[in-house]
């Protein structure tokens, strides 16, 4: 039995005539300690998939199994890093994390919780900003707070929904390394949703493309056989990397073309000629 299993998941929004099927027949299994990336176009239903796994949404049919138990709601065992940080703006960095830790470990004393908060704030190197509010931080710093908040709850599995999507390339690279570091330390299971193929290859053990919705399904998986720790500059010369990258991009391009050629309707434009203005005067 796999650690996380998705069996024949269908998710429909709306009812009756207005129903749109966002996800169809999703099957996925993730082993313990694995780092899996799901790559897809924007609007292909990635966030819906993530919310099904973390328990914010329930599938229309099919089942999500986490450690062989069906997922019926959110759980502290699955930490979530949201796409848009989702920090509470009226709390400081420390308070945001404190609230999460307190919920995850209700029996710990105040000073123990404070120690955990300090430890994780230190880990994302934001100790100097612990008393700042999210509004005073840059995008990258906010996302680091979100990462620290998710990890401070010590989840068994980290679910990341395009966590670095809104960041610039440099910050993105740094945070990728930070997340990999943390993941490598105690080998938690990780699921990364992204629209960046390179990011997926750099971070994950396996990449699974999500064919664009409506009726999004998962495509064939691509294994990444590159030793860890990976180095970005070296990786560019790695033949394995080039091969996998080309294969994934080709696959995604094909889906894109397929999607374009779906509409076969040809529009016949009426034959119109401009009015002859010159001769009217």
């Amino acid at each position, binding site marked *: 039995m796999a650690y996380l299993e998705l069996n024949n998941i269908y998710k429909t929004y709306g009812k009756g005539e207005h129903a749109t099927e966002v996800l169809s027949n999703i099957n996925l299994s993730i082993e313990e300690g694995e780092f899996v990336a799901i790559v897809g176009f924007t609007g292909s239903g990635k966030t819906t998939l993530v919310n099904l796994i*973390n328990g914010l949404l329930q599938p229309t049919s099919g089942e999500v199994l986490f450690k062989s138990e069906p997922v019926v709601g959110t759980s502290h065992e699955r930490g*979530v890093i*949201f796409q848009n940080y*989702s920090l509470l703006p*009226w*709390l400081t960095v420390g308070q945001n994390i404190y*609230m999460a830790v307190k919920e995850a470990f209700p029996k710990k004393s105040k000073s123990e919780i404070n120690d955990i908060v300090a430890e994780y704030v230190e880990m994302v190197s934001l100790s100097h900003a612990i008393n700042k*509010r999210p509004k005073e931080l840059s995008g990258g710093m906010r996302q680091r707070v979100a990462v620290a908040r998710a990890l401070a709850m010590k989840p068994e599995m980290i679910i990341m929904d395009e966590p670095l999507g809104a960041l610039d390339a440099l910050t993105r690279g740094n945070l990728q390394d930070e997340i990999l570091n943390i993941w490598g330390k105690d080998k938690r299971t990780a699921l990364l949703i992204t629209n960046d193929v390179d990011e997926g290859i750099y971070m994950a053990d396996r990449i699974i493309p999500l064919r664009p919705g409506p009726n999004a399904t998962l495509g064939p998986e691509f294994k990444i056989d590159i030793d860890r720790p990976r180095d970005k500059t070296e990786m560019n010369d790695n033949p394995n990397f080039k091969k996998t990258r080309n294969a994934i991009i080709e696959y995604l391009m094909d889906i894109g073309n397929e999607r374009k050629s779906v509409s076969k309707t040809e529009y016949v434009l009426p034959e119109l000629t401009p009015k002859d203005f010159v001769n009217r005067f």
Partner: protein
Amino acid sequence: MKQSITLDKITKFMGFEFLRTLKLIFTGKIEKEDFRNFLRKVVVPLASMLLFIGLWHMGSQALYNTEATYKIEKALTEQGQEAADAMEACIASGAVKCQPNTLPSPAQVWASFNTLLDDHFAIRADKQAFAEKTAALNAKRIAEGKDAITYTGRPSFVDQILTSIKTVFAGFLLALLIAVPIGIVIGLSKTLRSSVNWLIQIFKPVSPVVWLLLVFMIVKTLTKDSNSDSAFIISFISVGLCSMWATLVNTAMGVSSVDKDYINVAKVLKLGTFQKVFKVILPSALPLIFTGLRITLSVSWMVLIAIELLAQSPGLGSFVWEEFQNGAIDSNSKIIVAMFIIGGIGFLLDRIMLTVQNMISFNKNDGI
């Protein structure tokens, strides 16, 4: 990190930024940009104030002349030339008995303002004298278990202002205590919201006068046996009931429209219902709640005058009404004084609320 509260910040919060420019002028650290700001924020408003007073003066002059001419003509047609001449001389002499009764000029209003202040000081002195005179007797009466003798003279203008402010704050507090909890509860439950929506929609537009009558019906019966100040109770309850709707609607809206991201966070952290309400929903609704409270305070000040006028409870409203009934030579200008005082206090109350709102809200608004 605690943010230090400086005078600059407070004035900025309250929307009195021009004070900073004044300070810069006096300290000599002024730049071209500051000077332009000073022109825009101090000189231009002052000029428009002068223009306003000038127009007012000319307008009152014109009305005065019209009224005077009318009086003279009336005397001419009814009593003949002799009476008309007498009337003209009488008006010119400034005698009280034949002054045209019309819009007072700015100078008259200013004079009335000073009269009211003098009157206040006179009454205060009188009160003090009374207190001194009765101090010994009162001490004896209290020792004997009797009620102390209190001053029963008429209240001064300033006393009435204070009464009005007291009433408005009592009403505002009542509105806050009713509207915020109910707003939170109906904001949280869709079912409850749709079940009381008709009530809110129907009672929201009801005029203050009708509220006053309703409260009168109830309070009159309830306070039949007690000797409490029923005029005060009636007016502050009416003020509260009239003004609470803005807070009620805003609170319900703020609570029901919390950002979905925050709700997701609460779900992922598995916060309990109590925690979710107090740690996520309420803080995020706070700015809207305060916007509602600000509207409530200005509405309560606005309706207070009308309610006092009708309920005959002491205060600015009844002051205006009494002056109007009085019909003395300076009654009109006293009414105008009251008008400016009412406007000024309303403005001040709004600024206070804005300051509190800005301090509470996490997205610092610019002063409006």
